[in-house]
């Protein structure tokens, strides 16, 4: 069935479509800005852990771990499909896996520090860094 619209209705429909697309686009921009901000905070958390390692300061490392886990929860890799570039949306399971591994190593930093095992804690830090770069290599690419 073909519905015939008057010129006025047609203009209204076009305007509504434009409005909707601009809202979606604005949401997309906002999502990307939020993602960038969270990623920067994750980087700061990593720097905190590293500094704690350099100065043998377990407390600082633990603060870094807490900050990292808090920011990871904001990132929510399960929703990676919504913010990944169009040609990389399929890879969200890979992002979810990296998030899980980062959390696992972050928890192990705390465990290692409980037994004053700084070597193990630093190894965990190195593994977190690997997970980050692994995801960037696959998904971010630049």
């Amino acid at each position, binding site marked *: 069935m073909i519905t015939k619209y008057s010129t006025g209705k047609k203009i209204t429909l076009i305007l509504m479509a434009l409005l909707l697309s601009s809202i979606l686009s604005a949401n997309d921009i906002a999502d990307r800005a939020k993602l960038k901000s969270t990623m920067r905070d994750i980087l700061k958390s990593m720097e905190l852990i590293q500094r704690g390692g350099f100065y043998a300061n377990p407390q600082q490392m633990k603060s870094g771990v807490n900050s990292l886990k808090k920011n990871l929860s904001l990132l929510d890799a399960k929703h990676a499909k919504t913010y990944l570039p169009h040609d990389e949306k*399929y890879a969200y*399971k890979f992002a979810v*896996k990296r998030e899980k591994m980062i959390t*696992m*190593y972050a928890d192990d930093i705390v465990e290692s520090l409980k037994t004053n095992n700084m070597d193990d804690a630093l190894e965990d830090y190195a593994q977190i860094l*690997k997970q980050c770069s692994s995801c960037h*290599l696959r998904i971010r690419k630049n």
Partner: protein
Amino acid sequence: MQRRDFFKLVGGVSLVAIAPSLIEGELRADDGTLFKAYNKVQLIDAEGNPLLASKLVKEENYVFNYPHAGTSCMLLALPGTTEKDVKLRSEDGEEYIFKGGVGKGSNIVAYSAICPHQLTHINKNDTFISYTKTGEKTMACKQDSVIVCGSHLSAYDPHKGCKVVGGPAPQPLATIVLEHHDDDTLWAVAVLGPDKFHDFFKSFKPELKEQYGGKRKAKKLVSDAATTVALADFTKDIIKY
């Protein structure tokens, strides 16, 4: 090369060719052969019965843990005969020879399921590395009937000793040397090619604790028998790209 060294090398290589399970320890011959014998282990099914080569489903992705309790390997009955005497090269430039598959059709092969690029591996929760059947498409390469690591899209040809055919992997997957006996049973006896076991145990301590009760337990060498199941029964999620 001194005459004594030459005889040592020829003797060692001959022994490997005749009966790999007779070799114990590590053999790094001067010609670059890379071979490490482990316990001779029979492959059994989930019920504890011997796994028979003739009963394997072609192109089914089977899994067993070898040579360590926490290192998973893939077992495949490929659709066709594998190539023989394939020259392969490790990341360090060492050359070694893949002799071919076992079984009546020379199509049964096994490989370590640890990707040498960034150590992606099969675990009980999920796997990004698996076999892509004939006719199945993958983003990693145009070829089918390959093992694909979905993490960074490396592809390996199991017909050619898991030679790299796509992606960033720096070397083949290590071959698990199999023996096929007259009673149709299958045995894992050694690892050929460069393995990544050391790096694996160093890198996945928390995961090994979760899945095997600790690094030490995961590192324990498998002896006597290795339970072999379909990949879908081993892991909860098979992720393919």
